[in-house]
């Protein structure tokens, strides 16, 4: 049969490929692993130092500088939005690192299940309560923070505030659209896997 002959030829060609005989010794792996873990630790320290640093700076502005109440509300919302963002990134990385650190799980879990878990992690990052909380807090915070300075810049006109509102609204709509488009694509792939699993349960292909 032509189809079988053809694919058999490609299969033989595939297996004949010569590799560069890449190999690693267990001692070498342990050394690299220590280096990777040290890099990860350094990265974490940097992020965890930087984030509270920014939050403290905002808190200082909020408490000790003479800002209008609307600017203070804006700053507070911005701090909240950043905290939600950092919290979500932290949770996402924690889940991912747990999955990778527990390497024997990669051997025990079938490829389809592992792939589905990765897709679910990414989908959750792009939608749900966490997404809306960080979006609302950040954009509202940005809007209120700019409210008073823009008024001071143009006393007789509300035009800068209107422009600010339009720009922030466009950015917010864009953020929602991009996130939901991305999560919809991921959900389609999750649904395809679920359909495949259901077909498996029924004992045949869909």
């Amino acid at each position: 049969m032509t189809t079988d002959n053809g694919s058999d030829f490609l299969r033989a060609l595939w297996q004949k490929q010569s590799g560069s005989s890449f190999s690693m010794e267990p001692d070498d792996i342990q050394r690299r692993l220590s280096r990777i873990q040290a890099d990860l630790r350094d990265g974490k320290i940097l992020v965890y130092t930087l984030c509270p640093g920014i939050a403290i700076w905002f808190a200082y502005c909020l408490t000790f500088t003479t800002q209008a109440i609307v600017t203070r509300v804006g700053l507070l919302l911005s701090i909240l939005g950043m905290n939600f963002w950092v919290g979500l990134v932290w949770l996402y990385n924690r889940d991912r690192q747990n999955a990778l650190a527990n390497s024997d799980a990669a051997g025990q879990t079938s490829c389809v299940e592992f792939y589905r878990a990765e897709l679910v992690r990414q989908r959750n990052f792009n939608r749900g309560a966490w997404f809306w909380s960080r979006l609302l807090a950040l954009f509202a915070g940005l809007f209120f923070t700019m409210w008073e300075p823009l008024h001071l810049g143009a006393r007789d006109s509300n035009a800068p505030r209107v422009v600010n509102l339009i720009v922030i609204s466009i950015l917010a709509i864009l953020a929602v659209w991009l996130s939901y488009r991305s999560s919809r694509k991921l959900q389609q792939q999750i649904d395809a896997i679920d359909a495949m699993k259901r077909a498996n349960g029924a004992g045949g292909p869909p």
Partner: protein
Amino acid sequence: MSAQDDSYRKAVNEHGAALERLARAYEAGPEDRRDLLQEIHIALWRSFAGFDQRCSLRTWTYRVAHNIAVTHIYRGRRAKKISLLSIEELEESEQPAVSSSSAAAVESQQLLYQLYALIQRLNPADRQIITLYLEDLDAASIGEIVGISPGYAATKIHRIKRILAERFLEGRQS
């Protein structure tokens, strides 16, 4: 030498070349491929600390390698924004272009370039099935590694055979 080291060495001796081909099926660039290969070897060695021999060494090795590769390409894909296809969608899509550098290469090399270009467009689930098929695994083994029924794996393999024949060998004959 620990049992973990023993299992790792045995897996690399038996499947080292297949792991390299697998890395190439997931990553086109030589640097990304080398990174992936290193990541697979590290994960493989670590995984053998929990290897309970409930499945074969081959099944375990392929599962770890494919699962790590999926995580690896998704980490990179955030920046690359490639849209991946299923085998069914691939059947209806255009043949990927081959670069001019590969056009100068010998025919078998050209076929391999085309094959890799085709595989790299597939979504991970279908990419796993096609690479395992090319490694000469049967439907039951593919089903065990990927987590699908042997019947479903056989159906997918049938489609893969048809695509490979249509895309490569009929074009070659003409």
